């Protein structure tokens, strides 16, 4: 495998490699590398978040005490922000990169937002549990998650007054894709999910009095379907596999979908709905490594920050700063913009965000000052309320020793090949030639400040 191919695999399945890791792994075959990725991601380890503060908020008292409920809501907002930093650390440190990458992908597929920290933690655990598992079980589990039940109003979905919010998104976003069902299907689907509720601890329960036990007509079938039955019928439609494969292809391979490649993927996926099998097929295919698929994706803000951190260990001493970066770059983990999630690609880019992205490496690594302005109310997760424009430097700690060690005996050329996957603009290549030959801090920052580094 060429360095480029290995780095491509590791950027799409993970968050990139350091130069020496890259050199080491390039000696293995594709099959061995892919196997290794899956092997390393076998374990499912939930984010470790201390929830002992909940002891001060017993359910019985919350029922009666409005002030205590408000206090809990306030506390949960704080704790959810802490959860955000815990996830960030996981992204930076984990050796189980594929599971982490898949979890990010599914979090932006089964998009959900919730302020009850315990529930959103549980939701996140479900995402990582099924991230490489069975899609059928995955959808069913998601439909019974407390956070999802609240987010898409399933708890207001009753036999006598169905709420179609969840049913619509289930068909439109989670399974079939827009235009592949009728309005009538949504109505019948909503009926099957009536009475979906959750307990205080986040466990699912069915409120039988509110559940519609009568017969429903759905995709040409008739029966007393419940929610799980409906999901089974949806998955019988080949369109479901088609929709998921297209989405996976645009995220992991190329936003310009190659119909033939997707057709192959659908053949692998449909029926069994085994996510691991599908992902193995993609990473083992020849076309995944085609030139036109490498280095063409615009990194998400999370990719960008985590990518820098994985090259040079960076410790954010103030959580607020990590929050501010996420806000300024428009991707705040656990706080997606809406049920469709982050659109990705070009939508990350505006004049201002690009200036910030180009400056980010020197801000983080060289602690250059930066200007920012408070961007208004970030829904639910209330972020630093700074009113005016500030000039500030990050207070991060950068472990340069570790970096030095990681580039010992590494040439600038090798560092460039590690950091940049796309074809470099000819003029920019001339610029790089002036850097000299050493992978110094300065050269690292300069390479990371190129538009080419925005690509993966």
């Amino acid at each position, binding site marked *: 495998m060429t360095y480029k191919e290995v780095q491509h695999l590791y950027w799409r399945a993970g968050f990139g490699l350091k130069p020496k890791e890259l050199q080491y792994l390039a000696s293995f075959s594709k099959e061995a590398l892919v196997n290794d990725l899956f092997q390393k991601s076998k374990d499912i380890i939930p984010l470790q978040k201390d929830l002992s503060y909940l002891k001060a908020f017993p359910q019985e008292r919350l029922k009666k005490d409005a002030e205590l409920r408000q206090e809990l809501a306030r506390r949960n907002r704080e704790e959810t922000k802490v959860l955000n930093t815990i996830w960030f650390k996981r992204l930076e440190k984990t050796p189980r990169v594929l599971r982490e990458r898949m979890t990010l992908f599914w979090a932006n597929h089964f998009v959900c937002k919730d302020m009850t920290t315990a529930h959103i933690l549980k939701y996140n655990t479900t995402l990582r549990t099924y991230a490489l598992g069975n899609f059928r079980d995955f959808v069913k589990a998601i439909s019974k998650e407390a956070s999802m039940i609240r987010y898409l109003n399933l708890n207001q979905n009753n036999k006598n007054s169905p709420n179609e919010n969840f049913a619509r998104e289930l068909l439109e976003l989670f399974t079939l894709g827009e235009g592949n069902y009728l309005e009538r299907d949504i109505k019948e689907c909503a009926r099957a999910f009536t009475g979906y509720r959750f307990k205080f601890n986040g466990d699912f329960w069915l409120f039988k009095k509110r559940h519609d036990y009568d017969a429903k007509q759905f995709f040409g079938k008739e029966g007393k379907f419940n929610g799980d039955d409906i999901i089974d019928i949806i998955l019988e439609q080949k369109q479901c596999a088609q929709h998921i494969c297209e989405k996976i292809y645009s995220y992991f391979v190329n936003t310009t979908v190659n119909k033939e490649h997707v057709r192959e993927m659908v053949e692998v996926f449909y029926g069994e709905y085994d996510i691991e099998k599908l992902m193995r097929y993609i990473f083992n295919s020849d076309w995944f490594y085609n030139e036109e698929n490498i280095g063409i994706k615009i990194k998400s803000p999370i990719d960008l920050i985590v990518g820098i951190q994985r090259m040079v260990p960076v410790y954010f001493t103030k959580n607020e700063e990590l929050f501010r970066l996420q806000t300024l770059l428009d991707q705040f983990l656990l706080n997606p913009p809406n049920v469709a999630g982050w659109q990705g690609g070009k939508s990350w880019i505006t004049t201002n965000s*690009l200036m910030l992205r180009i400056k980010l490496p020197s801000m983080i690594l060289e602690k250059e000052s930066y200007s920012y302005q408070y961007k208004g109310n970030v829904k639910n997760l209330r972020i630093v309320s700074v009113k005016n424009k500030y000039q500030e430097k990050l207070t991060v700690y950068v472990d340069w020793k570790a970096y030095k060690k990681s580039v010992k005996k590494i040439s600038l050329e090798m560092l460039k090949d590690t950091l940049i996957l796309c074809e470099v603009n000819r003029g920019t290549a001339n610029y790089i030639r002036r850097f000299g030959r050493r992978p110094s801090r300065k050269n690292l920052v300069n390479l990371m400040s190129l538009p080419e580094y925005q690509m993966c």
Partner: protein
Amino acid sequence: MKRRSFIKNTSLATGMALVPNFLKAFDDLVPNLNTHRNLVVIHLKGGNDGLNTIIPVNNDIYYNARPKIALKQKDTIRLNDDLGFNKNLMPLKKLYDQGYLSIINNVGYPNPSRSHFVSSDIWQTASDHSNILDSGWIGRYLDKYGKKPYNAIQINDDLDLALRGERRNGIATRNAKQLYRSLQESDFNTILSYYDHSHHDEHNLGYLYQTMIDAKSSAKYLYETALDSNLSDSYPKKSSLSNQLKVVGQFIKSGLDTNIYYTSLAGFDTHANQIGRQDKLLKNYAEAIEAFVKDLRKNNRFKNTLILTFSEFGRRVKQNHSNGTDHGAANNVFVIGENLKKSGLYNSLASLNDLDDNGDLKYEIDFRTVYATILSKWLDVDDRIVLNQDFEKLNFI
């Protein structure tokens, strides 16, 4: 995604096969100040309560539905027998009397969304609720008719979806000097000084370089062209919208080659204790408008400027239990300008007797007909190419 291909197909169908105009030479033409027209858009974010903005002062349904928060007749500024302005809108009343304000009632769209986010997206992209497009309507205007990214400017650090096109984005800035300076702080200039124009990439990398080139040329243009903002007439201080409009005024007086300015005022999501909060916001809004119009008139630019004010939805007719109102549907839209064909009330307020299933006002005028009218009659472009559909034109201008 399908939404994207929909736009592409439509633009092909209309014969506008898009030639990528990457790296097009910049010809800095100075617009003709006498014919150059500006549109200023103001988004009242959060869903402004239209019924407490223009109040149906003789309507028992209104008073019964809002026992605690209905505005009494004596607290309003009489507009006609049936309607009154919120008392904080005196400056708008003056514009109304002069024939410079058109109030369009019951503006909305079919199957309304009550989500701020979705409904804002619908307004900003000019979409059907069932098919929300990825690009903004002003962004598509830039795609098809813009020559420079600064043909549309949002006075903010962040760029709303409205100004994001398929290929081209507007510029977001609060301050021409600041944009120029932060660009100097960045590595843009160094990188671009090496950039080889003949070796451009048609895809995402090329898009990044193009964004940098656009930013650089726009920042330079604004820095060199925009007059000093201190020269502006006095605008109310400590008001976000007033600060934004002051910058817009500065840009317009400088004769920038910009056709659309985008601004916003947030905080209208008044679920609880609405009265004081909305009053304050409407006062901010009205005073900012007053200073802006005065500034423009003094400099003979009001005749070239049209101001459109909208909110993503109105609010429920019936008040809630917290002396506020919940998300509603249709709402009023204000158009301000010197050359209105129909000033005053464009149409009458919809019946409060005939609400939708949620208890909200039903829409009568699709908001996209307002856009279509402005695009075709004010900005002089083919609205169908920007909106992907042929909407009826209204006759307020």
